[in-house]
């Protein structure tokens, strides 16, 4: 069963000059169709301005399609009566951790979502505890979010979404403002949710190392979906990725260059281990 499905999705916004006159129409998302199966870990890659964030906002009914349709768990997101079910089913984590934490204490922030859903008090506490434990932030539950590191704040944001019991979590560049160790923390937490809790994850990013374990990758460029496949399939096409101004993991690039120079190494090597193995088998 597909948790998220988009068909011929188009989103246009009107650019205006300072006086408010229409300057032109920009198409941020251009006829995108995609399907995400329940329980998958999906990554959406793309350069800045490729429309990936705009696409993400459609999955949570923050934006509505200009044309086409988006279904979440079989429900049309543009129908008014589905709004809250859609938003509960698809949790959204944004880029800046400071701008999405509402509570002054970690546990209060995590409780914000369930409070909005009208969950009874006792159950809110249970959900808060279980969500904070899932991201490994339970011991910080009484702290002020201002005292936490970026990675910790972002994990609190994830817990806040988790407490709403979503079927799917969309993360819109959750690691863009973090240092490498914070990035690792967050990605580990996200992968844990996917592996252990079976929650569908849609990760939007431009860090390639974060997507090599994904079940499926979508690549966007200028609002269109240009590539789709497993990480191996995507990263076998190094030249095409370079055309799209996307980085390739270092190991993959090295393997690719070696192959170009004539070494019989397979394309789409994603991890150092694989490359070592391939080089060993050369003899």
């Amino acid at each position, binding site marked *: 069963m597909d948790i998220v499905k988009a068909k011929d999705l188009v989103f246009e916004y009107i650019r205006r000059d300072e006086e408010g006159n229409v300057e032109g129409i920009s198409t941020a998302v251009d006829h995108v169709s995609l399907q995400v199966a329940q329980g998958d870990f999906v990554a959406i890659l793309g350069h800045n301005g490729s429309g990936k964030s705009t696409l993400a906002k459609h999955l949570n009914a923050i934006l509505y399609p200009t044309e086409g349709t988006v279904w979440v768990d079989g429900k049309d997101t543009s129908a008014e009566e589905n709004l809250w079910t859609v938003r509960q089913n698809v949790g959204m984590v*944004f880029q800046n951790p400071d701008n999405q934490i509402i509570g002054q204490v970690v546990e209060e922030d995590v409780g914000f979502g369930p409070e909005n859903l009208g969950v009874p*008090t006792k159950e809110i506490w249970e959900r808060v505890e279980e969500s904070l434990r899932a991201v490994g932030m339970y011991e910080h539950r009484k702290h002020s979010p201002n005292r936490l590191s970026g990675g910790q704040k972002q994990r609190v944001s994830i817990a806040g979404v988790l407490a709403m019991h979503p079927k799917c979590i969309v993360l819109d560049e959750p690691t863009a403002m973090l240092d490498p160790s914070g990035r690792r923390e967050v990605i580990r937490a996200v992968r844990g949710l996917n592996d252990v809790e079976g929650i569908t994850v849609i990760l939007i990013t431009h860090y390639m190392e974060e997507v090599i374990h994904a079940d499926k990758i979508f690549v966007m460029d200028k609002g269109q979906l240009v590539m789709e496949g497993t990480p191996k399939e995507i990263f076998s096409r190094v030249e095409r990725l370079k055309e799209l101004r996307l980085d390739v993991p270092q190991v993959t690039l090295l393997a690719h260059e070696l192959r170009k120079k004539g070494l019989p190494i397979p394309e789409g090597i994603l991890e150092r281990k694989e490359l070592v193995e391939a080089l060993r088998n050369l003899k």
Partner: protein
Amino acid sequence: MIRDITIGQYYQTDSVLHRLDPRVKLLGTLVYLVSLFCFHNPAGYAVALLFLILCIRLSHVPFGYMIKGMKSIMFILMITILFNLFLTSGTVLVSFWKITITVEGLKLAITMALRLCMLIIGASLMTLTTTPNHLTDGLEKGLRFLKVIKMPVHEIAMMMAIALRFIPILLEETDKIMKAQLARGADFESGGLVRRARAMVPLLVPLFVSAFRRANDLAMAMEARCYRGGDGRTKMKPLIYAGRDYAAYIILLAYLVISIFLGRWSVMTELLTSL
């Protein structure tokens, strides 16, 4: 600079006053503040002072910490004292040069100063023992009856809570922008008032822009987490009156009765004697 103002900042400790329902504290503070202006005789002051000392002892907040916060209002206090001291007419006590101090002036200055001090300590006692979140919760629930006249009570409380949450973030941001502008040769220190005020422009403009951007992001994040106003919302930490809250109400009522009784005593005795 802004961090130095300790007046009314929450003081983390455990006491009966800390655990009290915020609604009790809000009403109590209000009643106390009003009561300060209801009496005109020493007995009334004594009762009010006694009540305040009792509350301070109950709060476990060190007195020195409270006094430290008072420094920032010393100036206003001094002005009040001086104005009352020199500008009240009546029987002359001392007189030199152009300055005369009257008995009435002296009395008024002392009582006004005492009143102001009690007022400020009384009010800060509430904020010292109540977290901002608790306070907004208390306001929201305590003022819920205003919804009848279409007051957006929940929205106001939510705005207060968010404002409080963002104070440290915006302070940090101000600091960052200030440093960035200083690095590019901005001068916030020298010049007269006008020049200094003008120097704030390159600080305030980016600060406002970023605050609006943050507000936009936050609104989106709240909506994404199904926020839709106060209707149908449950509370993680609901406010429920406990035994101690009722006890506090009774004590408050007792204080009110005593202070009115004492405060009006002189008036009543006068009335009685005139009869």
